[in-house]
């Protein structure tokens, strides 16, 4: 009665390779930014303003992706911008996951009054327009890295709470949870040992999705000049600046936009890829 089900090997798909590869590249670039960036990202030089990217005949060496209207190197700014984008993605994503996930888990597993309170709170929370909410929050808290992170957590925890609640509810009625209770284990212990590991794949998928969203929210806030100070380069800020000179120097807008796009796409694909690979129930 040897069963071959245990022998199924799931290959790491192309999706995981590509998204993981891009994010690793980005992370390395962010960590080693001073070594990688060909120019000082803040150095302005009007003699080198609006240089085109490297394939153009008018390009200059050292400005691979061209320069903006103040003569700052686009590539260097993207590389430095990755620092902020990744910090926001990791910290805000994780915090959102912790806050929303915990509340969702409690609501979905304990049901009853904790669920009623948390769910109504989520309903009310979701009725606020999120971007407006964020802008309002930053206006109150004042711009800065911490404010951005708080704004993202405050806007997005509801997504986790909703999804994890549903997931915890469907796990909570399974027989193995009943068995654990019959074995005399406490409610809280059961939640941690039986429910949590089974909502974890969903949580990871949501977390990476949330990281992508955090990058977008940060870019939106930079775009409307509500992110951290305009000195440090951010992708959203670059897009916002590039917008004004898009007819003369399209590369200032397009390269950060592509980076942003690839990053957000990679985050969401990474989540899906990880879920495919590690969720024991999917096959």
């Amino acid at each position, binding site marked *: *009665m*040897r*069963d071959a*089900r*245990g022998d*199924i090997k799931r290959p790491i798909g192309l999706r995981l390779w590509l998204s993981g590869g891009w994010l690793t590249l980005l992370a390395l670039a962010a960590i080693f930014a001073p070594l990688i960036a060909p120019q000082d990202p803040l150095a302005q030089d009007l003699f080198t303003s609006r240089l085109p990217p490297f394939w153009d005949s008018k390009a200059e060496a050292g400005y691979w992706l061209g320069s903006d209207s103040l003569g700052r190197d686009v590539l260097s700014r993207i590389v430095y911008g990755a620092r902020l984008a990744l910090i926001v993605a990791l910290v805000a994503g994780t915090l959102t996951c912790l806050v929303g996930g915990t509340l969702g888990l409690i609501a979905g597993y304990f*049901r*009853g009054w904790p669920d009623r309170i948390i769910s109504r709170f989520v309903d009310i929370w979701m009725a606020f327009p999120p971007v407006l909410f964020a802008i309002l929050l930053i206006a109150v808290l004042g711009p800065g890295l911490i404010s951005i992170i708080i704004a993202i957590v405050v806007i997005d925890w509801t997504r986790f709470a909703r999804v994890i609640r549903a997931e915890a509810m469907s796990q909570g009625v*399974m*027989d*193995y949870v*009943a*068995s654990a*209770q*019959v*074995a*005399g*284990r406490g409610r809280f212990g059961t939640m941690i*040992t*039986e429910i949590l*590991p*089974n909502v*974890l794949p969903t949580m990871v998928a949501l977390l990476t999705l949330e990281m992508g969203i955090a990058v977008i929210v940060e870019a939106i806030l930079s775009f409307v000049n509500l992110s951290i100070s305009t000195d440090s380069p951010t992708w959203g800020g670059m897009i916002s600046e590039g917008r004004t000179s898009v007819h003369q120097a399209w590369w200032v807008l397009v390269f950060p936009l592509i980076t942003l796009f690839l990053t957000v796409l990679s985050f969401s694909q990474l989540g899906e890829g990880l879920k495919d690979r590690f969720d*024991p*129930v999917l*096959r």
Partner: protein
Amino acid sequence: MKPYLSIRNLCVTLKHGAPILRSVTLDVSAGQVHGLVGESGAGKSMIGKAVLGTLPRALHIRSGEIWLDGVDLLTLPLQERRKRIGATAALIPQDPLTALNPSRRIGPQITKRLVDILGWHKNAAEDRALDLLAEVHIPDPSRVMRSYPHELSGGMRQRILIASAFAAEPKLIIADEPTTALDVTVQKQILRLIADMQARHGTALLFVTHDLGVVSKVCDTLSVLYAGKVVEDARMQRFFMRPVHPYSAALLAATPTYTNPTGSLKPVPATVIEDVETEVQQHDMRAGL
């Protein structure tokens, strides 16, 4: 012999009052197998759940007593009740596919019970788990201990659940339709396995099923349930020879036999159903439900 599990006049209702179990009274003696038979929705599983304290939220116990090993469980505070049940009773669930935690390996899922309930050391628990898996005829137990549930077939999983139910040497096991989710060839093996294990460990077994054929193979005594009410309580042989209640008789007559598989398919007559329904209504009137 003094019954190990004794349920007295157990009434379970929905929160707003609709009755689910109507004054259920039944006994399971130590070392005996008691069958609990009835149609779907008769409340068979709910009796098991009431004993184990895992009733769905919407239901609550209105009145009655559940004596387990000389203690009325319903008089104990919740935490103590859980402890007591955990130490003396176990469940073999209906659906082996949802009864094992999909994200944990088999080994820890069995040993956790031993560590939790008996306070065993982890290594001792692992040895015991290996023995148990061998006892339920699982080939290569050490490999299975390291497997995840999705890597095993339904029959294998049900064997594991049986092993795990017997792990802490409970005095009472409640088997909630343990063979319903399996196909017929595996069903027979599993039934025999449960019967063997029960005999070897001398456990009291409450066997919930809708299959009279199954009951006749494994049970010593049985209760027939209709709409949450026990209509007949009998010893096995007497029941199959001379069922007392007309509903039980009709149920028996409705069971197809080997000799005449299609000709013997008789529905339960409408008059019998009407009579039972009246009985149920009379009970509700008396009980003020």
